[in-house]
């Protein structure tokens, strides 16, 4: 694929699908829209795999180092001779890996939705939105320019808004989509300011040149940006932290995580695509993209990334233990796993073996995409069967839904980090990197992985074991289109851990060999098994032990189940402080002073006209008098006053 057309076709196919289904879907493609969407994405996936094969095994490596390849570049908007926004396609190890992940998971979601959304009236619109999202995400990954990534970032936000609010008759869905969009948009403000700071000092918007100018020690741009400081931090730190804030918003890091649980109002395949595998990892992707600057020039900003990620991971795990809606459990689980990816980047350094954290983070991104989307699709299958999201309506479904049961179990084992499933390998890399850099983070990560195993198996037992099934098997487990993705993803959840990512995706392009000793893995795995055992004791057969324990924990349990009241804090700040102190005076000013000025002008004009209109009396003699007066004054003027 040295021909850039094929690579450009990867995002363009979903785009054309979006336009086709969006404009003509309702009338012409109301039943065939799904097939068209799935077919176009299938072609994109094949092209992605071909690109990956070509990059990793044929053209990507020069002298043993994987290169950034600019496939094409088109100058779109030129501000100054050396500052322009170019639209281009950049190929990079992480880009190609993400291409494979995004297109494959999206394909699975498309196939699953053929069965899940059957009978939906707005079937073609759903697929149009899915195609728009896939296009935006693929465009985001392939961007070669930081402004282009911002453009696609916003597009991803918009598509997420459309998809979360898909059932727009439900007010909760509308509120959730608004919340997601507003929170991420607010974070994107930071992103934009960060872009502007970095671009101002580096005099470029292109990724390759930007990284080169700001990460090489001897670069004059780097000295300039380090010299400029504001409120105690150098401009480089400000720029990087602001960019990270943008990424934190999209990746639901604390405290910008509030939108992710509410975003579960959307259809479940949407949650699988967006909030498990693709959009939420955009923040991680961004930090990884700018990683050389973070690691080589500003370790302080990297510390911020690390602490945020670690705290979010732990925080989300605690809350997930108390939630009763299965999708919310999975949402907090996602937040926790993304926290893992973030702090893995945070503890990493750049070159060679020290870049283990980076590699681990990308590896975890790869495996997490598969088992998390599997978990969500499985949950979708269960919800489709039981017609409810709450754990109390489920139970004992293992006999009624065998395929879902087995694939869900595989995914839970993967996320808990039990060998030889996929999650074990990626988590071990991360824990190793944390162990080597920062013991505190290592301990937090260890405790969090124990909690992960616990709440995931709590979820598993509540759905498939705890009591006898209260629904009867009236319409079967689901169509074949719902079962195939589950099977395929389950295979990947087992097998993707064995892919040697370390020799492909690393921070500096050189392959590294990972060597996690067996003795190191004993502690995490045994913690995970402990969590599983605890969950089995408490939840496998229904008993009142969980209730008694939660009552004994009292306030802590209530706070955790109420998500630590973060939403209430946000609401308080917005309503009481922002609206009252800023919104209301601004509105008063606008209504009385700005509008008042306009009204004053209009009213005074009207008054003046009212006063003069008497001159137009319609009477000839009045006019004659005015005429005479005018002539008299002109005569006097010209005879006596004109010099």
């Amino acid at each position: 694929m040295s021909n850039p057309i094929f690579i450009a076709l990867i995002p363009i196919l979903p785009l054309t699908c979006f336009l086709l289904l969006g404009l003509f879907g309702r009338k012409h493609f109301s039943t065939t829209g799904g097939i068209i969407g799935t077919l176009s994405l299938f072609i994109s996936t094949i092209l992605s795999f071909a690109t990956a094969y070509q990059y990793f095994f044929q053209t990507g490596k020069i002298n043993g180092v994987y290169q950034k390849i600019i496939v094409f570049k088109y100058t779109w908007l030129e501000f100054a001779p050396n500052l322009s926004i170019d639209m281009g396609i950049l190929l990079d190890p992480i880009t190609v890996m993400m291409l494979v992940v995004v297109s494959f998971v999206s394909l699975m979601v498309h196939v699953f939705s053929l069965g899940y959304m059957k009978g939906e009236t707005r079937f073609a619109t759903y697929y149009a939105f899915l195609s728009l999202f896939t296009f935006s995400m693929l465009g985001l990954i392939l961007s070669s320019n930081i402004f282009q990534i911002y453009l696609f970032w916003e597009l991803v936000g918009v598509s997420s808004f459309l998809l979360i609010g898909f059932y727009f008759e439900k007010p909760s869905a509308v509120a959730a989509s608004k919340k997601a969009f507003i929170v991420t948009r607010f974070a994107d403000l930071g992103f934009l300011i960060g872009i502007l700071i970095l671009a101002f000092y580096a005099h470029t918007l292109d990724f390759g040149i930007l990284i080169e100018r700001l990460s090489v020690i001897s670069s004059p741009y780097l000295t300039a940006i380090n010299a400029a400081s504001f409120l105690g931090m150098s401009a480089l730190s400000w720029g990087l932290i602001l960019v990270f804030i943008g990424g934190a918003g999209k990746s639901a890091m604390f405290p910008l995580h509030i939108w992710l649980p509410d975003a579960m109002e959307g259809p479940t395949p949407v949650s699988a695509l967006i909030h498990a595998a693709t959009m939420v990892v955009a923040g991680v992707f961004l930090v990884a993209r700018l990683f050389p600057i973070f690691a080589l020039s500003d370790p302080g900003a990297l510390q911020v990334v690390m602490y945020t990620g670690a705290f979010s991971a732990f925080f989300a795990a605690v809350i997930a233990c108390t939630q009763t809606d299965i999708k919310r459990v999975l949402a907090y689980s996602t937040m926790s796993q993304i926290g893992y990816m973030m702090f893995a980047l945070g503890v990493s350094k750049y070159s060679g073996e020290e870049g283990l954290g980076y590699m681990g983070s990308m590896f975890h991104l790869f495996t997490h995409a598969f088992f998390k989307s599997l978990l969500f699709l499985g949950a979708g299958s269960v919800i489709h069967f039981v017609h409810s999201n709450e754990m109390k309506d489920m139970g004992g479904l293992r006999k009624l839904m065998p395929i879902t049961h087995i694939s869900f179990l595989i995914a839970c084992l993967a996320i808990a980090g039990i060998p030889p499933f996929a999650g074990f390998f990626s988590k071990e890399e991360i824990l190793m990197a944390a162990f080597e850099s920062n013991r505190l983070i290592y301990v937090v990560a260890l405790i969090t992985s124990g909690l992960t195993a616990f709440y995931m198996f709590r979820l598993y037992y509540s759905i498939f074991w705890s009591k006898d099934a209260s629904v009867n098997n009236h319409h079967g487990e689901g169509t074949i289109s719902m079962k195939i993705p589950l099977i395929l993803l389950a295979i990947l959840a087992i097998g993707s851990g064995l892919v040697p990512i370390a020799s492909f995706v690393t921070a500096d392009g050189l392959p590294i060999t990972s060597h996690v000793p067996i003795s190191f893995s004993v502690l995490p795995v045994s913690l995970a098994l402990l969590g599983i055992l605890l969950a089995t004791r408490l939840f496998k057969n229904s008993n009142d032990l969980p209730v008694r324990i939660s009552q004994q924990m009292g306030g802590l349990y209530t706070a955790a189940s109420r998500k630590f009241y973060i939403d209430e804090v946000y609401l308080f700040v917005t309503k009481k402080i922002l609206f009252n102190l800023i919104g209301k005076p601004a509105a008063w000013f606008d209504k009385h002073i700005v509008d008042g000025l306009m009204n004053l002008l209009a009213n005074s004009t009207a008054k003046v006209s009212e006063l003069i209109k008497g001159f137009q009396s319609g009477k000839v003699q009045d006019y004659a008098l005015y005429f005479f007066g005018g002539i008299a004054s002109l005569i006097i003027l010209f005879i006596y006053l004109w010099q």
Partner: protein
Amino acid sequence: MNEVPLTHILFLSTALFFIGAYGLFTRRNMITMLMAIELMLNSVNINFVAFNKYLYADKLDGIFFSIFIITIAAAEAAVAIAIIINLYRSHHSIDVEDATELKY
């Protein structure tokens, strides 16, 4: 001729003109306004012939102007009466205060 200075005749014509102007501004009836206009035209006639006789005795231009003015005044009075009759038909009154269609 030289018994009365030119300025006295001119005073007469001026006074007649402004009497006509007063009538034009004050009268409510269209026909009386027309009468006032005739007075003004006559004052102009007096002016012309006075200037001709006192200043330019070898020419006859003033007389000619006066003759023409008389003619035109006749034509104009006829047209004015026609308009007044037309207006009377639509308003049934020749009060000039009733014809205020151009009012704001």
